[in-house]
């Protein structure tokens, strides 16, 4: 997946755990874990908004695009 999730880095900068973020944004720890590990297929704008609001960051700090090097992708 060429979309890279940097949630752990932003969380580390804010010295916040995933559990604390889960409580703050009212999203289950399981779903946040899916997002953090890059296993999510899609992210709702409302989720992104809540995370950015709590972590005081921009969406671009959480997500980045890295083109896949695999042939045919």
């Amino acid at each position, binding site marked *: 997946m060429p979309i890279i999730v940097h949630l752990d880095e932003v969380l580390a900068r804010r010295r916040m755990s995933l559990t604390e973020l889960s409580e703050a944004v009212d*999203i289950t720890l399981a*779903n*946040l874990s*899916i*997002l953090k590990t890059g*296993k*999510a*297929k*899609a*992210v*709702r704008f409302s*989720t992104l908004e809540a995370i950015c609001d709590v972590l005081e960051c921009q969406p671009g700090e959480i997500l980045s695009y890295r083109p896949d090097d695999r042939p045919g992708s």
Partner: protein
Amino acid sequence: MRKREGLIWGASVIVRIACISNRLFLLAVAIGLAATWILAGFFGRLLAEPNPEVNLPAAMTGIRLLMLIGIAMAVATDRLLVPLAKIIATARAGDPFILANAQRLQAIGWALLALQLLDIPCALLARFWPSLGSAAPSGDVSVGGWIATLMVFVLSRVFAVGSVMRDELAGTV
């Protein structure tokens, strides 16, 4: 919620009973069809008893054709009830919106179509086989049956699209 669970449980029981009854009917008709050759004399007497002037060979052929249609109908009904039982099982398990159920609905649609088409030989027998007498099937065409067939095919498509949409949503955070 409990009422809905009761409804699904009831449907499950009804479909299971219908499935067993239909298979017993299929077995009985298959045995009956074989018996028209093995016990031809007995069947001949049975047909001649109410109407001694009956054309016996024609009546016997008519009865055999009727039994063949009965077997085809029982097979089509089985093809309808088995996927229906599986759909009900997924509903009981709480996860009916899956692609497999769309395919099962399509199978039910084909079975319904077969049953509707089997009305045609029934109508032909009723119209052109007078020797069958009171045993002749009613040659009616069921408009409701055709609408139900169409509806099941449309529902199958709705299920297919819905299950793909649900799969897409499954990985959404």
